[in-house]
């Protein structure tokens, strides 16, 4: 870029299964800790139509993996969000969430949920800023020893 940047709204596109091979090697660095185990290939193979990507000049810079529950017709779920460190605090996560909210509303969903580990204070605060109610930590939510914060928001 030839000059200092302004906060420009990036283009959001629907994910494709092939994004997995590009995104998978990046997500641990994006999160600053091992997280790839939470993002097996099946999520982009089977839920790519409800997942979103923001591309930078050399590949994806932000990803949201979302699901419209096939079992609960009211509920959508955000499973994973990652933003490249070089693009933090540009509003990308907010844009991805808002795009997913719209997608979910269009599909008739009235509720969106997400979870995170209690250690992830910034994530909990971000979800509050996005209008989620935060519950927990709920002991053993994901099995023994795996307490979780649960986020829920009406659409």
């Amino acid at each position, binding site marked *: *870029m030839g*000059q*200092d*940047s*302004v*906060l420009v709204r990036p283009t959001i596109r629907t994910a494709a299964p092939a994004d997995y091979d590009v995104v998978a090697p990046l997500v641990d660095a994006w999160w600053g800790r091992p997280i790839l185990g939470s993002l097996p290939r099946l999520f982009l193979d089977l839920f790519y139509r409800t997942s979103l990507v923001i591309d930078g000049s050399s590949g994806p810079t932000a990803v949201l993996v979302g699901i419209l529950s096939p079992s609960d017709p009211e509920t959508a779920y955000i499973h994973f969000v990652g933003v490249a*460190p*070089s693009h*933090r*605090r*540009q*509003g990308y996560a*907010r844009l991805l969430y808002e795009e997913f909210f719209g997608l979910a509303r269009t599909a008739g969903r009235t509720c969106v949920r997400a979870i995170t580990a209690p250690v992830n*204070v*910034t*994530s*909990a*605060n*971000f979800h*509050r*800023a*996005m209008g989620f109610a935060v519950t927990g930590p709920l002991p053993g939510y994901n099995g023994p020893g795996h307490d979780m914060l649960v986020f829920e928001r009406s659409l």
Partner: protein
Amino acid sequence: MDAGLTRRFTRTKYRPGYSIAEVDALIEQIEATLGLRPRYGPPVTAAEVAAAKFRLVRLKPGYEMREVDEALDRYQEQLQDQGWG
């Protein structure tokens, strides 16, 4: 702007950094909310800090992004501890 703020983070130049003015403004607001300096404006919540955006600068000096992010993580915990969740 007081000297304490301007010495807070490593400066960047010719690589991306957060806008010094925008970061300093938010931190002043946070520290005022925490009672560390006089408060003249509204308080800021931890949720607002988590969602705060900054302009990226490359040609002008900026602040090292990782250092700012880590500091804001710590500030969020302090704000929550004081009931500014």
